[in-house]
């Protein structure tokens, strides 16, 4: 293993960072940020400040800037490293544990920031989303035996026992059901943050999570029909819209309890599938 491989990887990754999926996701986040996606922010601090009142992040300290920039650059990096269909091959894959850590960074910061300001909705959604999300990804990892995204999202082969195929699809559907809590939608709705840097970071994260959830379904499409690949993403976007409409204004607690039942089912399934 030589340094040449590192240079080759860096050379090949520019299109992942700036074209597909990184660049496109950033554009999507930018468009959605203009207010199409969410309503008005909960707090209007800083929205109409004169330019001289704005604090430039790098005027404070290098680390202060890094803490700002990390809110955007970590989910961006997570998206760029995801082995999505049609993305440039950089010769190395990445696992879902690392991707989720990169994508979760802005939401973790924002949830904590809002909590310290006395708003708990996002932190509650965050805590409600982790058990079903991890249980679902754990189920997906049982048939493939791996957290590597390429292997994790692969469709079970015909040779796979029926029970293990069922485990895979239960995991994929579990991820779908955890979407409202994961994205902060419907009953788990949280008002958008006022800070633009938080908004972009959070939207990049949401795009990443949506793509992650869509991957098991995208694996169903044969290579010859790769033009159909946007279909699962569009389907999930439709589902998100439906969940938003269905759950808007409702109490989150019953949904959170239902998610806990889902986790219990997933754990029982995982234990049951162990002998296979």
């Amino acid at each position, binding site marked *: 293993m030589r340094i040449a491989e590192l240079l080759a990887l860096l050379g090949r990754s520019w299109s992942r960072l700036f074209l597909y999926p990184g660049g496109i996701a950033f554009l999507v986040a930018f468009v959605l940020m203009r207010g199409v996606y969410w309503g008005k922010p909960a707090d209007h601090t800083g929205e109409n400040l004169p330019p001289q009142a704005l*604090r430039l992040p790098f005027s404070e300290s290098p680390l202060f*800037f890094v803490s700002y920039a990390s809110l955007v650059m970590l989910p961006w990096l997570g998206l760029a490293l995801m082995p999505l269909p049609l993305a440039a091959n950089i010769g190395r894959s990445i696992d879902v544990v690392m991707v989720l850590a990169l994508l*979760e960074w802005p939401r973790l910061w924002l949830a904590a920031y809002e909590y310290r300001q006395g708003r708990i909705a996002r932190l509650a959604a965050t*805590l409600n989303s*982790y058990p079903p999300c991890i249980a679902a990804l754990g189920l997906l*990892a049982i048939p493939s*035996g791996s957290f590597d995204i390429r292997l994790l999202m692969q469709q079970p082969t015909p040779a796979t026992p029926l029970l293990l195929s069922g485990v895979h699809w239960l995991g994929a559907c579990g991820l779908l059901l955890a979407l409202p809590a994961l994205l902060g939608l419907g009953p788990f709705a949280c008002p958008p943050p006022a800070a633009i840097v938080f908004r972009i970071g959070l939207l990049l994260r949401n795009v990443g999570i949506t793509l992650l959830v869509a991957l098991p379904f995208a694996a169903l499409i044969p290579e010859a029909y790769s033009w159909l690949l946007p279909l699962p993403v569009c389907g999930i976007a439709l589902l998100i819209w439906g969940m938003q409409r269905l759950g808007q204004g409702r109490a989150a*607690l019953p949904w*959170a309890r239902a998610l806990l039942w889902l986790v219990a089912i997933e754990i029982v399934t995982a234990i049951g599938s162990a002998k296979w």
Partner: protein
Amino acid sequence: MNRGLLHKIELLLLYGLCCVLVALLWAVRRAPLTPLPLLILDAPGAWFALVVCFGVAFTKQHYQFPLWHCLAIALFALLAALAAIPWIVVLLLLASTLLDWYTSTHHGAQQRYPRTVIEWVLRYPQCVSAIPALLSVLILAIRGVVRYDDPTAGAALDSLVFGFALLSAVLPFVSLLNRAADPPSPFGFLLRMFWLFPLMRLLLLSPWNTVWSISAALLGAGLALWASLVSLAHSDTYASQRAGQNLLPAIALTALGLASSAGVAACCFAILAVSVQTQRSASSHNAAEINRATGANTTAFELFPLGSTFVAAWLAIGAAAAAGSPMLAGVLWLAILLWGVALQIRANPLIAVRLDLRLVLMLAFGIAAPQIVYYGIQPVVEQLQGGLTAYGNLSAARWIGLEMADSASRVVITAPILAAAPLMAVLAAVCVLLARLWPKLSAGLNLDSEPALEQTELWHALTQEVPWLIQERNDADR
């Protein structure tokens, strides 16, 4: 002679010792050396000694300790790591721990003596760990095992010996029951990790029984989840951070319990991650001072995805998955995410963020993990190979990242950690450019905001929204 100068000389000696240990690790990377009958110079011992010496030196430079105490603690730990005779290992570890306890009660941050035995046990559990560890080596001695490299030592290893060794590694976690806000001893968490060493040495004797592995791994994972929940539920910032500091040792215990190449590597990396965590345990009582000096500015970065703490947890998750247990991996994953939440809500990252050495080292160790694993940890794994199972192998692509494979050579986790660092630098440059072109990017953050409600009220509101979250106990009894 000037006292300050003597402290500097001591610090220099400690870092000098670290350099000698790096050289020793390099010298024994192929095969162990036995220059004297009492010593066994091998990679596992050299790694533990190096990490403890580095942790002691790193902690010392931030706080004033009595003269020569730190050097003595480091020397005792070093000799324990390199001793060939089991009971000498335990006695030296005990000496190191007792000296740490003496330093903390007579000269350090401790303000009062424990009044009851239970209080003493809760506050210095690592001293109590010596009892089962001594019982474990006593049984080995009765069965005729004089040295760890004795060819017949494997026959003496049974459930009783393993059980006592495991108990000595688990006992330090009883401090999680301690709800008093006393700070632990200065090097408490570092020496606590060291009680894993007698357990790791048992891998030299013979492979472990499956039941032993499962019990150690399950205990570790349970403790990790408990530590993260306690850390999340505590209203006191310092107590929350202290509970969270048990997480990495618990993760290391889980990884070691898996007894695979991947598990041992994850355990070794976890103790390295603890060595750059230690200085926070040597803080004083004053909560505001703790936040200013140690907590608020860097806690938010504790679980930075490319930092050493996260990489250690990620390796342990991978080791559990490679051992064929995605659910065990899921428990560790959940524990680390909940701890991330606990850290973030206690920190105030947007105020007083400043660069410090701990943060730099944390990032450096995380990003350079492939190199550290390749040069430092791989020899440890190779020398313990005789006692390891095939359920989890680690492969370090020195210039790209790390990956773990299961017994069928199927990749379980993989990440281009080292390669991600330059990519992140490119994205940081893009962010600078965007912020220059579009100043509104930094709008909307109310930087000097104060919490609107009391923590307890907020927590109570949160428990109404999250059904599995435990209602915080009344802290009035503290």
